[in-house]
């Protein structure tokens, strides 16, 4: 509306009885308008980039989730639907019978409580131990520092599956520092007269966790060491100058900075212990109900009796797989829920860190 020539006064128009509109456009020079246009273009570019990002994330999520979509769809099928060739992904008679059978016949809730106890304990111990060891390796010069670091890498490299017979023997008759255990007695045997049998208890996993030797603990220690190396020394020095001791500095100054790392380690160790099958097969494998500790892998290894298809059923292996996949889904569902709670701390954990000035 405004013309370029009227530079001094903005155009005032009376729109209705009680309102006016003021048009300042006439005051803008060409250069200013150009900048404004560019700014608008910039917002368009960022919006475009955001949409692209969103599409990319959606695509990658699809790649991750697609197998699960198929499994979720299959988990609602009846035995007749599995046989039916016309049924793909969408079941004709959706039922919850597979879920019901796994939850009630395989004692899902008992397994849930047991596994929660085990995983929570292991995750907390592993998190604390890897923080301590990582800090010791990162910030202190002592003889053998690099040897300990190499030992950490070695524990990472050698998977426990390569040592399984040795591990099993050692924990079936547990003793401290027994080299060639079938020949020489260890510390516990010398004191009490007999080695301990730790199978069917949580102790083997607790002991491995305390020693920083459980599943992928080398990674956690290395991770914490790298993180603490990145923390500037000035933080600790100022704490020492203010009269704080080494341990108080660690717990009150350094540890709060490491919250995102600690949560990450907690998530790793918790979810890996939760879905663990290897240690379950080493320490808890039995059919004897007297020793039986129901854990999450039992959901998936046992076929619920009511789901066993009748003789002559055509797609037996396929149906077994569907039941196993459903069990797998029931196992990982609590982990996803837990992660949704924890990821908030991953975002909010570290607002107060860093050296100011």
């Amino acid at each position, binding site marked *: 509306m405004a013309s370029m020539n009227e530079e001094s006064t903005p155009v005032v128009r009376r729109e209705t009885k009680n309102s006016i509109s003021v048009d300042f456009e006439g005051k803008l020079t060409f250069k200013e308008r150009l900048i404004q246009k560019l700014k608008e273009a910039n917002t368009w570019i960022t919006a475009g980039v955001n949409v692209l990002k969103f599409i990319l994330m959606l695509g990658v999520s699809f790649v991750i989730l697609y197998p699960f979509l198929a499994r979720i769809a299959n988990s609602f099928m009846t035995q007749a639907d599995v046989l039916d060739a016309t049924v793909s992904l969408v079941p004709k008679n959706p039922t919850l019978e597979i879920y019901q059978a796994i939850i009630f016949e395989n004692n899902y809730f008992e397994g849930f409580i047991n596994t929660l106890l085990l995983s929570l304990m292991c995750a907390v111990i592993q998190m604390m131990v890897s923080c301590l060891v990582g800090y010791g390796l990162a910030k202190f010069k002592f003889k053998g520092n690099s040897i300990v670091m190499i030992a950490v890498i070695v524990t990472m490299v050698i998977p426990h599956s390569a040592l399984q017979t040795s591990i099993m023997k050692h924990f079936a008759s547990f003793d401290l*520092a027994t080299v060639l255990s079938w020949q020489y007695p260890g510390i516990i045997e010398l004191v009490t007269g007999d080695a301990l049998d730790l199978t069917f208890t949580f102790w083997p996993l607790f002991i491995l966790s305390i020693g*920083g030797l459980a599943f992928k603990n080398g990674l956690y220690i290395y991770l914490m060491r790298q993180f603490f190396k990145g923390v500037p020394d000035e933080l600790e020095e100022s704490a020492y100058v203010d009269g704080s001791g080494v341990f108080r500095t660690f717990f009150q100054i350094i540890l709060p900075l490491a919250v995102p790392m600690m949560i990450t380690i907690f998530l790793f160790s918790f979810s890996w212990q939760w879905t663990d099958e290897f240690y379950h097969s080493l320490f808890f494998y039995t059919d004897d109900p007297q020793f039986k500790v129901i854990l999450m892998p039992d959901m998936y290894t046992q076929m619920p009796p009511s789901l066993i298809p009748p003789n002559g059923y055509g797609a037996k292996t396929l149906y077994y797989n569907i039941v196993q996949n459903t069990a797998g889904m029931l196992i990982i569902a609590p*982990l996803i829920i837990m992660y949704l709670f924890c990821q908030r701390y991953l975002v909010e954990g570290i607002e107060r860190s860093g050296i100011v000035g």
Partner: protein
Amino acid sequence: MEETISQETTVAEQITENAAEVVENDEPKVEEKPQRRRRSASLEKKRAMAGYVFVLPFILGVLLVYLPILIDSIWWSFFIRSYVPVDGVMTEVYTPNYFNFYINAFVESPSFVTTLLSSIQQLLFEVPAIIIFALFIAVVLNQKMLGRAAFRAIFFVPVIIATGLMDSINGADIATGQTQAGIDDGTGASAGAGIINMLDVQYIFQSMAIGGELVTYVVGLVNNIYNIINYSGVQMLIFLAGLQSISPSIYEACRIDGATGWETFWKVTFPMISPMILVNAIYTVIDSFTRSSNPMMVFINGQTTVDPHYAIAMYWIYFVVVLLIIGVVAAIASTMVFYQRKD
């Protein structure tokens, strides 16, 4: 107040007097020097002791539990197990075999060395791809965007799949062809048939004339996208935690100084995240080598049923090779690592 001030002054006077003495006489000077040295040494010793206390759980664990397990395992690799009837009962008899298993692995075993080389080749291909992809996704997930929490939850799924349980469930799936419709599921059989036609990708890159090796590399990446996404879950979460621990005030300072997002990434984010890049490089190497689907692990596991002790010997050769490769990777990666310290 007055008293304390006077005390301080007297102390200060004493110090100055002592200093004057030191300056005047030669003998106290000589006495002072070893005293100072001893004092600093004891501080260092205290620090070293504190270091030992921090590392103690791991040292105890290794010495009391882990080392015996390792030594037993190595011990077995020097013996042959055989069954001999003693009084009508078959009993295990171990006869010393010295280094024969280790030598046989190289000399007699048909595919030990070739499998080893192919797994190293696979590694060289995978490691850069996984690290770059994980860093990229972590940086994107660290920004504010629509549905960030949901995406983070979805990208956590590969971490859960990384363990044995879900692996075997996945395996059962692939065996029955449940998930193969329209997507590459990592078996390689249906690679890219649904998403992108490989020939198209190849055509695009060849018309750019950027060299044959790069073309095969990129085509291989697209082929392998399912595996790369699923193997980079752990690395992504580590990067995410690393990005979270960079202080926001540094970014604020960058914005005030007028740095663009590109500059901020290369001058701030990348150096600050570089310790985590080293962790991830080493972890990716280890994960790639010791994953149960690695050709070498499959090969050695196959040997376990034939002769467990021979398999243990092969494992040990393999781990030494892996350690050497890790040494090389760490040496390369640690040249780029930046620590926020004074020296």
